[in-house]
Structure formats: C-alpha cells, structure tokens
C-alpha cells in the first residue's frame, strides 16, 4: 500500500532561518506530489504540486520542493522563513488508480519565532 512519511513532526525555527521539511513516499509507479499548508484557523491550502517535467517546483510564498525519483522524496524548502510561515505542512501523493485519492503524510508543525 502507498504511504507517505514526513520525518519531522515539530520544527522550531527563528525568523530568517532556512527550512527543509522531508517527505518520502512509497509507490513504484507514476505519482503526483503535493504540499499542503494549514495556517492557524484556516483551511488546508495547496502550496505546490509536481506532476512532471522540471523536478524543482516553485510554489507560493517563496516555497519550493524538489522531486528526487531515485530517493522517492519530495522535500519542501524555503531559504528564509518568516513568522507568518508558522503552520502545519502536509505532504501528499496521488497515485491515480482511477480516481484521485490523496494519501497524506502525518504533517509537520512549524513554529517560527521572531
């Protein structure tokens, strides 16, 4: 069965620090990959997605993610975090199978201190 692993459950950073959140998935076929973000009190929002092409994907708010097929990874990065990036981040995989089922990782809570 497909699964998604997020290595860090809680991350605490100071403003301007660099961020990298790990995400690994287990599925041997073609996948679509997503990062979602949930800011405090808000809906889950799509941050970025990868379907094909350039493995380095740019998203909103300065986030990017790199798909490394050989490592089954899709890590999220931001060179300099802000206090407003405090949120929970979810990695998700869509492995098709006739309908678009999203399989989510456990999530990473990021707290950015000013």
């Amino acid at each position, binding site marked *: 069965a497909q699964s998604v692993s997020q290595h860090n459950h809680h991350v605490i950073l100071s403003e301007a620090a660099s961020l990298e959140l790990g995400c690994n998935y287990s599925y041997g076929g073609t996948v679509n990959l997503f990062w979602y973000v949930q800011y405090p009190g808000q809906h889950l929002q799509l941050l970025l*997605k990868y379907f094909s092409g350039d493995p380095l994907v740019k998203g909103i708010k300065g986030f990017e993610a790199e798909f490394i097929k050989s490592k089954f990874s899709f890590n999220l990065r931001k060179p300099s975090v802000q206090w407003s990036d405090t949120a929970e981040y*979810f990695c998700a995989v869509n492995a098709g199978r006739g309908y678009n*089922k999203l399989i989510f990782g*456990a999530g990473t809570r990021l707290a950015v201190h000013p």
Partner: protein
Amino acid sequence: SAVISQKPSRDICQRGTSLTIQCQVDSQVTMMFWYRQQPGQSLTLIATANQGSEATYESGFVIDKFPISRPNLTFSTLTVSNMSPEDSSIYLCSVEPAINEQFFGPGTRLTVL
C-alpha cells in the same frame, strides 16, 4: 479554485447518536471527497462521492457507518452514525474542480462524549 463551506463547524455529541455534516461548494464539481483527521494524525480518505452514483468507500470505512448523499453537483452530506468517542475527529470535504487539484473545506470538528 473553489470556495467550500461546511456545517456545522463543530459539534459535541453523545455516543449512540448520529450527526450529518453538510458540504457546499460555490461551483459545480463532479468529484467530492470526504476525509477524516483524527487527533494528532493525518488526513484519511473516507469516500469519494460522485453525483448520480453511490459513494466509493475506502478500506476500513462502510456505508452503514458513514452514509453519504450527493444530490447535486454543488452539495454533499456525510453522516457519522451511531457515534462513539473514537469518531471524535475533524471531518473535511474536498472538491476537485480541475484535474489533480483538490480544494478543502474548513472542516467540522466533532467531539463525541
């Protein structure tokens, strides 16, 4: 994009009762999804609801426990039946107005006593 609303936003219920959660979207969509997020855990897909057909349930979820209606292209309901404290979760609906792009509702926070 799509704007999704859910009702109620939260509820506290007694065990053995049922709660129906409504999901309304501002545009017509073919596919709607219901997810559960248990405390401290990630989102798990309960079922996919297409208008005009029966919902498709994921492993571990059954229609008797989570009946779903999808009367039109902008609305769906999920009922949590015969609730127990283990059903305490956030229940979210999502829609896919474009291929591989899901938008989520605000969720319904359910507490079962």
